[in-house]
């Protein structure tokens, strides 16, 4: 079987854009030309997250990610393109909440997704908040490698 079939049948990953149910989604290009798209989290699988199943696929088949992007089907957002041929790629979700009695901020919460790439030991993450604002942070992962980093 080729990687596309293995990804779909053994790792339950989306290998065609039509299988991706989201307007905004991550997409990666593997080193044999296979494209993998973000799909729904699956509570019925041992590993719910498609990103973590992609990590398993890469580790178990030796495939590497050449490029990663965060794309928008409707074209309303600007696609986030990660550095090509990076040392690794990262995807995460984030939630924040503020405990305060401040009149304007009490009850504030927000969600975000983060896509990132590794250069040396520095991981650069672009966070896209649910209000559309983008933030970027860089972190040295020498002593604490994120579990959701897929090394190339």
């Amino acid at each position, binding site marked *: 079987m080729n990687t596309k079939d293995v990804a779909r049948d053994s790792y339950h990953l989306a290998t065609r854009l039509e299988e991706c149910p989201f307007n905004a989604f991550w997409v990666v290009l593997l080193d044999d030309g296979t494209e993998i798209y973000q799909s729904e989290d699956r509570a019925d699988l041992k590993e719910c997250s498609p990103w973590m199943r992609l990590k398993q696929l890469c580790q178990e088949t030796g495939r590497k990610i050449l490029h990663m992007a965060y794309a928008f089907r409707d074209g309303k957002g600007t696609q986030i393109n990660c550095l090509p041929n990076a040392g690794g790629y990262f995807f*995460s979700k984030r939630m924040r*909440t503020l*405990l305060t*009695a401040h009149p*304007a901020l*009490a*009850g*504030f*919460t927000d969600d975000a997704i983060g896509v990132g790439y590794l250069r040396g030991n520095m991981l650069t993450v672009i966070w896209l908040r649910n209000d559309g604002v983008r933030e970027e942070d860089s972190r040295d992962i020498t002593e604490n490698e994120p579990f959701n980093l897929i090394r190339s």
Partner: protein
Amino acid sequence: MNTLTFLAPSGAPASGTIIQQLTTPGNTSGANFLGFFGTGGPQGAPFAVIVDRYQDKTFITNMSGTNLGVAPWGLRASGQLINNKYLTSNTVNIDGGGSVAISTVPINSGTVLIRFVPSGSIAVRTQNATLRAVILNSTSGVDNVTSVVTGLKVQGFEPINDSAWTQMAGTGATDNQLPFNDHNSSLAQHDFFACLSASPEAVGQRNNFGFFMIVEFL
């Protein structure tokens, strides 16, 4: 929808109380604040914490530091939380019981429990969870949440996992956040406990700050 909620932990007099209850934007009279007081608590005397000393009582309060055990709030035990008073860099006084090594503090002695539940009963791992004490003012917004509170020392530690306080704010702070251990097991609920202590660096009521919790997960 993901939820991230501040609660009174099981060991607290106000066990199980949701701290953000009655909270709607603009509501400053709801139970949505952590109040650090002197030995009298929010109603007794002295209610104030002496400058450069740490608090003797901790309560869930509104912005005015009101006792919320009375109507219309009626919080259990007036919203009293376990008091974790800073003594030295590696000891704490829990509810006036004397000096205890931080490394031996049980998890349910936390001042607050911060519970993260991802949407859809999905099991996730967490990492880089941090708690910050941030300053807020009339022009503050979500972009300002990395601004550390000033004029107030805030100390914190994570019971079970830490053996020393982390100074989160105030003169001498080296790290402006309390980091929590990563949760490497996939779970549909993640609980973070924090012991918190505060000391004013100047005279006067302080209510222009908040606690900001950040969790990364997948």
